């Protein structure tokens, strides 16, 4: 019997201890401390590759870099046109080959004065070190020399005029921190010791690889300190979990939502959704006869697609309105040129005379007229006897591609063109399109406020020198387009340059090496019960995240007096702790009951042995 009693005593003690442990959280967590810092928590659904601004290539990390280091000039929140950053003024020489920037009086976050020498160091490092060109190298390709003639004057000379001089998306770094870095690709360049000194509204104070980036307000920021004390970028590998976290108040801001997620968040209390004009366009590439830099044909595109009349008929047989409505859930804009309407200065919108209006009868008539009669099986035949049967290459993993291919195949079937679906992995799409092994293929690009890059991708000069190494987007090569491109690239006057850029896009539109299908909206959401204001870029209808600047974070205004309380929501609400504690206690009691019942039934037997 004594054995039984001691077992019971042991059990009771264990039970008590476990209950105490379970209840501890409730006892330990006192009331929230007063004067919590205001924290804006941002969900990142994309990986964090580097914090080193020379190598940070992902949209997520480029965004963090833009907050941490100020630029010479940057696109404004109002209309994306250049506005002063570190440079108070900028003056090009008459020939456009020499630019002089006047640098403002400012300090780095560690108190060291910021001078033109820092800017000169940044650019010179990129010009001399390939590893430092990884993220933003295209901006310095035409740079001849960069010198700081004194602390306030930076002079850049160019090999040839470059229109993007007022939109250099290059974070300027402190020379006293970075001059000691010999290997730009080394892991130490991603540590706070290196990336923790900045000149932007917030500076990086903590980094947990691919998990968390913490930034604190920079008191030395030249525009004045921001209204939020801290930013936290937390990485989610599952977008649905991130949406859930926004609903629960674990995070305050999220982007890259799908239309389904966006609709689910619409009208939720305390949450404001933001449907922003997108910076990306989706397109259907039509192989115009791929060729290499020496104008030798490459790839295996269908010869009939070299005929611009066939390409135009295809463009007329596609209805972007249906794609936007049915595939994008209405979250997209109707197409025009390759610069999205978000950058309205340079965006080309075709007039009624040029526009490819969806009209299957007209497309059919045009093909009849061009000498592609329908055969007995309803499929058209080219003058050379080949049937108009085209492969349609798309990304198997993307819902968009899977659905667009069905619509396009249906429409083209109506005009006597047979489509074979080739939905493959992203890598295979890349491989076949860059080798010219496609007839029709889905593609798309994100664009910058400065249109130079996306326009340059359509020139003859970027045709592949060797097979498979192309920067050309659609194997477009057209003398008239190249002429207009060169004019815009060398034009310092924005209004004139925009005119040339639009004419170049009009030429592209007319020649149809690809059909722009839509501009996807950027879908975002934030906790408006915690932040009353976040600045969009552009202010009317623009995005909050992945801007060409730091406007949303710098302009964030915590909501009223509740903000301090809201700052605590990263931890657990007390209610939750009590619930967990209670749950644990119940569990322990249950286990205790079960164990004791076993003890009872086994008791006598225990004695026996």
């Amino acid at each position, binding site marked *: 019997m004594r054995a039984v009693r001691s077992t019971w005593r042991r059990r009771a003690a264990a039970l008590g201890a476990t209950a105490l442990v379970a209840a*501890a*959280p409730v006892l*330990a967590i006192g009331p929230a401390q007063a004067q919590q810092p205001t*924290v804006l928590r941002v969900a990142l659904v994309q*990986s964090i*590759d*580097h914090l080193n601004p020379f*190598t940070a*290539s992902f949209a997520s990390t480029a965004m963090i870099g833009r907050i941490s280091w100020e630029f010479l000039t940057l696109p404004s929140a109002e209309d994306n046109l250049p506005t002063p950053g570190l440079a108070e003024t900028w003056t090009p020489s008459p020939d456009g080959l020499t630019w002089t920037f006047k640098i403002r009086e400012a300090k780095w976050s560690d108190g060291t004065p910021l001078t033109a020498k820092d800017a000169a160091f940044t650019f010179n490092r990129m010009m001399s070190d*390939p*590893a430092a*060109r*990884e*993220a933003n*190298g*295209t901006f310095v390709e035409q740079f001849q020399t960069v010198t700081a003639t004194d602390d306030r004057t930076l002079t850049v000379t160019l090999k040839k005029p470059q229109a993007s001089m007022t939109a250099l998306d290059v974070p300027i770094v402190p020379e006293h921190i970075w001059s000691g870095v010999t290997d730009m*690709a080394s*892991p130490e360049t*991603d540590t706070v010791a290196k990336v923790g000194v900045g000149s932007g509204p917030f500076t990086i104070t*903590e980094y947990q*690889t*691919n*998990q968390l980036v*913490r930034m604190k307000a920079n008191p030395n920021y030249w525009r004045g300190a921001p209204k939020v004390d801290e930013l936290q970028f*937390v*990485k*989610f*590998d*599952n977008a*649905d*979990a991130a949406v*859930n*976290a926004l*609903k*629960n*108040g*674990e995070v305050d801001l999220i982007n890259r939502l799908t239309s389904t997620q966006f609709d689910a968040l619409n009208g939720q209390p305390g949450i404001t959704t933001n449907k922003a004009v997108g910076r990306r366009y989706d397109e259907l590439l039509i192989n115009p006869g791929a060729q290499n830099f020496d104008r030798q044909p490459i790839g295996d595109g269908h010869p009939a697609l070299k005929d611009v009349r066939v390409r135009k008929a295809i463009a007329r047989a596609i209805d972007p309105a249906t794609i936007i409505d049915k595939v994008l859930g209405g979250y997209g804009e109707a197409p025009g040129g390759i610069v999205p309407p978000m950058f309205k200065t340079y965006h080309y919108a075709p007039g009624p005379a040029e526009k490819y209006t969806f009209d299957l009868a007209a497309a059919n008539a045009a093909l009849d007229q061009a000498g592609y009669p329908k055969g007995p099986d309803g499929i058209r035949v080219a003058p050379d006897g080949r049937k108009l049967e085209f492969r349609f290459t798309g990304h198997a993993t993307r819902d968009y591609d899977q659905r667009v291919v069905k619509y396009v195949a249906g429409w083209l079937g109506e005009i006597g063109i047979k489509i074979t679906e080739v939905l*493959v*992995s*992203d*890598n*295979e799409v*890349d*491989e076949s399109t860059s080798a010219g092994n496609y007839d029709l293929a889905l593609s798309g*690009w*994100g664009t*910058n406020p400065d249109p130079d890059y996306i326009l340059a991708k359509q020139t003859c000069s970027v045709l592949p*020198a060797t097979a*498979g*190494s192309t*920067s050309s987007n659609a194997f477009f090569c057209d003398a008239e387009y190249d002429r207009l491109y060169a004019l815009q690239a060398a034009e310092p006057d924005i209004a004139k340059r925009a005119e040339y850029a639009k004419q170049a896009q009009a030429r592209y539109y007319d020649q149809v090496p690809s059909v722009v299908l839509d501009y996807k909206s950027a879908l975002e959401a934030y906790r408006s019960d915690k932040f009353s204001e976040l600045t969009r870029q552009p202010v009317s209808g623009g995005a909050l995240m992945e801007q060409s600047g730091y406007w949303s974070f710098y302009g964030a205004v915590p909501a009223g007096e509740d903000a301090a309380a809201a700052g605590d929501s*990263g*931890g*657990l609400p007390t209610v*939750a702790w009590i*619930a967990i504690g209670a749950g644990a206690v119940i569990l322990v009691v249950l286990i205790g009951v079960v164990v004791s019942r*076993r003890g009872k*039934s*086994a008791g006598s*037997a225990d004695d026996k042995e």
Partner: protein
Amino acid sequence: MTEAVSTATGAELPDPDERRGGTGTLRFLAGKIGAGLVSLLLVVVLGFLLFRMIPGDPVTTMTRDRPTSPQQLAELRARLGVDKPMLQQFFDYFGGLLRGDLGTSYIYNRPVAAMIGERVWPTVLLVGTATVLAVVLGLWLGVRAAWKRGSAFDKVQTGVALTLWSVPQFWLGLMLLIATQGLFPSRGMTSPDTPPGFFTEALDVAHHLTLPCLTLLAVIYAQYMLVMRSSLLEEMNADYLTTARAKGLRDDLVRRRHAVPNALLPTVTLVFLQFGLVVSGTVTVEAVFSWPGLGLLTFEALRGPDLPLLQGVFLILAGSVVVMNLFAEVLYRVLDPRVRAS
């Protein structure tokens, strides 16, 4: 990993009756370890070839959607070493392996070994906790279900186990996340706002661990339960149990002292065999809860595709299966006298 093997050798049962014991066991161990090493070598070669057979060029993938000039692409290729001939790449990789160098990640520019090193412990914590709970729960339920074969309890438990076993982990995790309404964190292992201190930090980790652990537990306990149930059912008709009952022993004693120990054999082996597989099975659970472990690292590497990282993770995951297999075989020999005698 080698440590695990050496403890296994140390775990020999002192058995005075076993005359050929020493040399036999040694020979057996040497053979098993040799076979394990061959498997690992195959894993290295296969991993290398497999990830290079994926169509596409890592450099093109990495630079997708960002401004790059052909010159930059060439610089990047040279830096990553993908411009070298395949055979030379393999020998570079293999030579590095022998020096304990798993290479450098393409995307993160960090040594793969260091990246894997910092991700091992979260996975061990998650898998370890879930496995321990799954074993306890699975064995307990399995024994109960077998003993009351055909009862309502047995039918319900078996049904639940089969259901949970066949439910997709991804979906289950997400449902738990949505159902708990923010009671538990949606991501990661720690919260950035935890006040410092051992107690608060441990509590924070436990709080984050709950949901991923439950998800993993729900999926793996079922297997242990079903195996335990079937192996106990096999024992239940054995003569020695009839003898034990005939001696007048109480029913639960017969179960605990006689039947269960014998039925444990296949289950214990399965636990170890499974342990290696469970590590790779965490990919989905870790991806749902952004749990910073090896599974998530695999997921991130695949997105790249970050070849050196993929190869490293592949090697570790496959290696853990090989080592655990070895461990299970040795353990089985130790536990089951019949195997030893043969």
